[in-house]
């Protein structure tokens, strides 16, 4: 039995039908479905222990605080951070990146300093830097993407210079599925004197991540793409970098003492968690981490690699279909983008939806990458623990029928 078949029973939503057809959910890179263990943890928290954290002197408050902080410890171990102070809970990846932009980059960077990004970034890792660059007169530079959909690292020596203060890069492309060689880039960037921030939104669901081994300075990811609820994410920051920083937002929780004319800051990590944090979200994230760890990375990686190889083979067999990203399944995760020439991705997605197949279509919040590829968008199928080879077969069959409806007979019969 494949991992997908084994875990499907844990995801009740997969029993749903769409207009009488079984749901085939291939949009996990947008958000993953939640296993029962996560939903149970949320329910138990709200039914038994719900209270505000850190300042409630009563049993529920203490329980809630313990659960919240235990989730932090679990996340710390999950991503290989050395210290719990390095794990800041945020709303998600976007907020985590913005916290770095506001707290570290804004005071640290000066006019003419450079931030090195790549052409495959999600808008979440572009717009905060575009805003800061405008404000601080910074220069943004970009690692190019090759025709194969990988970073052109030959350009790195040219791009990394004396003025490069930050390299902000995605670990895995949300469009192409490409896994970037983060460890190598971190080494070269830090040798050039730059800090490195990695957007791990698409990596954490698919790959074991060890921030200490990678040597990154900052790492951002979201809970909801790995089975946790929406509204919880993580910013990892090396302790010695976070320690001197001031908070991004004012509010409670981030303070040590407040007077009418001044304020002193709380310790890490709470200095960066203003207001009531997403307590249940953190508990849910802890449960999602536990769920993933119980399945084991070896099984998860094998499952993802098998699905990716299967998808690349089956979609690659569909003559006339444009496939994006590297053809080698070893350098990518289960995120596959394609186009039926002449058919807009939204039309293709709507036709697939009529068969119960949920995919993502459009620019995927990566418009510069779309321009680089010379397209308006793609249709994207993305996998998670519960995806099966049958889902991929259904997608391919759906594509052929969509071509009959919308296409101009471009897809030829399968060679299989």
């Amino acid at each position: 039995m494949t991992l997908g078949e084994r875990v499907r029973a844990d995801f009740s939503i997969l029993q749903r039908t769409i207009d009488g057809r079984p749901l085939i959910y291939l949009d996990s890179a947008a958000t993953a479905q939640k296993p029962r263990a996560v939903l149970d943890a949320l329910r138990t928290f709200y039914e038994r222990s719900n209270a505000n954290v850190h300042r409630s002197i009563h049993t529920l408050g203490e329980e809630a605080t313990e659960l919240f902080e235990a989730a932090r410890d679990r996340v710390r171990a999950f991503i290989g951070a050395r210290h719990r102070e390095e794990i800041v809970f945020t709303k998600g990846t976007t907020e985590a990146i913005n916290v770095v932009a506001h707290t570290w980059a804004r005071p640290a960077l000066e006019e003419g300093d450079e931030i090195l990004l790549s052409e495959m970034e999600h808008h979440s890792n572009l717009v905060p830097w575009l805003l800061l660059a405008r404000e601080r007169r910074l220069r943004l530079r970009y690692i190019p993407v090759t025709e194969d959909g990988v970073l052109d690292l030959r350009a790195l020596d040219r791009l990394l210079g004396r003025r490069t203060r930050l390299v902000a890069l995605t670990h895995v492309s949300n469009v192409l599925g490409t896994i970037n060689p983060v460890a190598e880039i971190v080494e070269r960037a830090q040798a050039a004197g730059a800090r490195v921030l990695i957007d791990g939104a698409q990596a954490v669901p698919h790959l074991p991540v060890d921030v200490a081994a990678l040597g990154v300075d900052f790492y951002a990811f979201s809970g909801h793409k790995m089975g946790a609820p929406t509204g919880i994410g993580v910013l990892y920051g090396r302790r010695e970098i976070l320690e001197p920083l001031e908070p991004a937002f004012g509010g409670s929780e981030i303070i040590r003492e407040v007077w009418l004319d001044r304020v002193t800051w709380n310790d890490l990590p709470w200095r960066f968690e203003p207001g009531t944090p997403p307590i249940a979200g953190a508990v849910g994230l802890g449960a999602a981490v536990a769920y993933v760890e119980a399945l084991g990375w070896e099984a998860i990686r094998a499952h993802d690699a098998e699905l990716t190889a299967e998808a690349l083979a089956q979609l690659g067999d569909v003559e006339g279909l444009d496939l994006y990203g590297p053809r080698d399944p070893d350098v990518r995760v289960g995120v596959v983008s394609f186009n039926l020439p002449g058919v807009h991705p939204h039309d293709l997605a709507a036709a697939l939806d009529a068969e119960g197949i949920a995919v993502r279509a459009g620019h995927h919040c990566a418009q510069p990458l779309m321009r680089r590829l010379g397209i308006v968008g793609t249709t994207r199928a993305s996998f998670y623990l519960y995806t099966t080879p049958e889902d991929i077969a259904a997608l391919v069959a759906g594509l052929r029928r969509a071509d009959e409806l919308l296409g101009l007979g471009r897809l030829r019969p399968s060679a299989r």
Partner: protein
Amino acid sequence: MCYGGRVDRLYSDVILDRFKHPRYFGELDAPDAAHEDVNPLCGDRVRIEVRLEGGPSAEIEAVRYRGDACAIALASADLLAEMVEGRPAGEATRVDRDRLLAALQADIRPSRLRCVTLPLDVFRAALAGFEVAR
């Protein structure tokens, strides 16, 4: 065709016909007015060019559109062009969403309504630009 009713209702015969056999797709040699805009939700882009006869009751002589857009938006642009070509500009600006929706004969869900209205907004902006230029 093994589709359920759902996709047939969205991609009506009118939409499929206009998408596969557009009547007004293209560009004009010397347009008097033109506008281009995107749908921020999806990045779709539509450009509409208009040639107007002079005079206060300017008649729309020709309309052409281009775009990187979905079948619904392209069909909407094609129908709009048909509705306004040969009409006085004042009358043409009264074509509205409901008239286009009726012509599309499709079950357009709220998430796709913007696909229908993008060409309409672009066309109106083109005419408004012409008025300003005059």
